[in-house]
């Protein structure tokens, strides 16, 4: 394990008077699989959205690969409303759009599948490679980039073979079964050439067998692509199985973090989220 790849420092996300994420600190090291768990409404997806640039945090800083990518401090009306801590610590405002963060090497999937519906499986992955093309649009229209285009198509074919979707490459994305759509969404994220993969509830709505397949798949991605994975998930089997470390959120606050064993035995986490078996 080498240095940290993603660093979230004192991030607070406040919508009006509601604090969705409160003073979140987390760190992800290269090659790790880290899970973020917590009850519904704990602010997990909000934290994801802050990291990927969908929301601008109210306060705090996010660094990726040692460089600050997102930073903000309470401004304007928020100055009075702000309920969080570390208010005066940050002075810069840095709010890139999600596409710029993706270009830096962070790709994500969505809680409810967001594939490009009428496009084929192949095109879904191919479009995701667009952000890595170097040709301008005139050259691309005049087909001066056929070398790059061919290279991309070869890479898509290779990627689809790796994830086991090559035999359905010409089907429209929505005609796939649910589990495969999830898999395609992950393949699409991988096509943007990320260093860090963020998965928002990849197993949501899956049956146990599909979940097992997904667990194996995430492990395979880590092995094959050397990918660092950060995921939100409610399936505890999956989380405990593959995570190196786990962060637990409750009401926007980080209540625990540690290895799966530590989390399973942490009383606060059991109270807030995991619960105990009824006959215990």
């Amino acid at each position, binding site marked *: 394990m080498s240095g940290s790849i993603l660093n979230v420092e004192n991030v607070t996300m406040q919508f009006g008077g509601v604090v969705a994420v409160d003073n979140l600190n987390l760190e992800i090291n290269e090659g790790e699989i880290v899970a973020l768990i917590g009850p519904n409404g704990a602010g997990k997806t909000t934290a994801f959205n802050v990291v990927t640039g969908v929301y601008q945090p109210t306060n705090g800083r996010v660094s990726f690969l040692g460089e600050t990518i997102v930073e903000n401090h309470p401004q304007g009306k928020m100055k009075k409303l702000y309920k969080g801590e570390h208010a005066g610590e940050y002075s810069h405002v840095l709010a890139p759009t*999600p596409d710029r963060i993706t270009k830096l090497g962070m790709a994500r999937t969505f809680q409810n599948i967001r594939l490009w*519906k009428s*496009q084929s499986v192949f095109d879904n992955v191919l*479009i995701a490679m667009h952000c890595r093309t170097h040709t301008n649009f005139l050259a691309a229209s005049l087909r001066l980039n056929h070398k790059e285009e061919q290279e991309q198509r070869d890479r898509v074919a290779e990627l689809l073979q790796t994830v086991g979707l090559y035999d359905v490459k010409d089907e429209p994305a929505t005609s796939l079964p649910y589990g495969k759509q999830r898999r395609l969404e992950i393949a699409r994220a991988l096509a943007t050439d990320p260093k860090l993969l963020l998965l928002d509830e990849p197993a949501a709505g899956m049956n146990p067998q599909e979940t097992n397949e997904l667990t194996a798949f995430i492990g395979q991605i880590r092995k094959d692509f050397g990918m660092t994975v950060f995921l939100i998930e409610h399936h505890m089997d999956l989380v405990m199985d593959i995570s190196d470390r786990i962060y637990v959120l409750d009401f926007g606050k980080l209540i625990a973090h540690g290895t799966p064993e530590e989390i399973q035995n942490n009383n606060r986490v059991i109270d807030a989220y995991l619960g105990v078996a009824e006959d215990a």
Partner: protein
Amino acid sequence: MIQQRSKKGAVTAVIACAVLLAAVILLENISLLLPAGSVPNVLKPTSQLFAVLKKGAVYSLAAVSMNLLNGFTGLFSLGQAGFMLLGAYTYAILSVPVADRAAVYYLYGGSAVNFSFQDMFGTIFGTEGVGGAVSLGLGVAVAMVLAGCVAAVFAYFIGLPVLRLKSDYLAIATLGFAEIIKAVFQWQALGPVTNGANMIKNFPTFSSFNITGADGTVILRLSTFFPFLVSMICIAAICLLINSTYGRAFKAIREDETAAEAMGINLAKHKMLSFCTSAFFAGVSGAMFAMFVTNAQAKVYTTTMTYEILLIVVIGGIGSISGSVMATFLYVACSEWWLRFLDNVTVINGVQLPFLRAGFRMVVFSVVIMIVVLFFRRGIMGDKELPDLFKKRARKEGTGK
């Protein structure tokens, strides 16, 4: 690898275009080949057929450029007529021969722009014979490209604030800008340039491309061929763009903006690209429209014109280029030609048919459109292209897959 794309499709398309162009040349020159007495009415140069073909060529480019924006990028914009107006005026202002300027701009005591591309090239290549043809061709081509560029530049500045809006709001804002452009071009203070609310005329039109002999008789008609050629080149360019990596990004934006942005597609940049490209080709089609009607006048480029083009796009199928082109010719032929007989008072066996009188054509036409929209909910072509239909059939017959 297996993903080698076949060149067959492209070759077929080029051959099809060449055949179509040859057919157009043949069609409009039949009247010259046949002995004078035996030319059927429909093939005479004054026939409605050629007016329909010309207008169809002009409108198909306008429709396809609108489809690029509305159908492929998912931006519901209604600025088409405004951009066509910009193209038409740019072309007209840069093309009226210097000698005719005083007559055209007589209300303003001559034009502020004493320059035309045809004259400029005329000083290089000469004005007679082959040199004259070259200077005419180059002059028109350069003016048309500039017409597109002016529309694209305006689109860029309009796009800066407007493209932050979505769906209906974008439509209203672009509609507003189109109206503003129209009003500005009719403004008296700009008279020396735009000729105020009067029309600009005397610039080269489609019939300038007919090749005439020394005695003024037409040797070869190219007046329908020219708009077909220009539209074909422009539509081919749009096709190439749509099938390139940028076109795929446009489609991704249409289908899911959030996902597109998360996959590294810069929304602002790509929307602007699509908006400006669409405006460019709308400008070119506007220039051609000015050539078709032989004048440029701001009051022609109304919202109704935008709706007409939008209607064509919807009938053809949002997201289908071949659909837009087919719908254009059907629409233009229906509205201008095939239903004409409904406008004439007709008496059969001494009984005057009811309803048939001037204007009834438009009533029937509206009903036809309603029927089309009811029975083809997604347009004639949906989001398929013409070759897709053959592909499907081939697959069914071939492998049984």
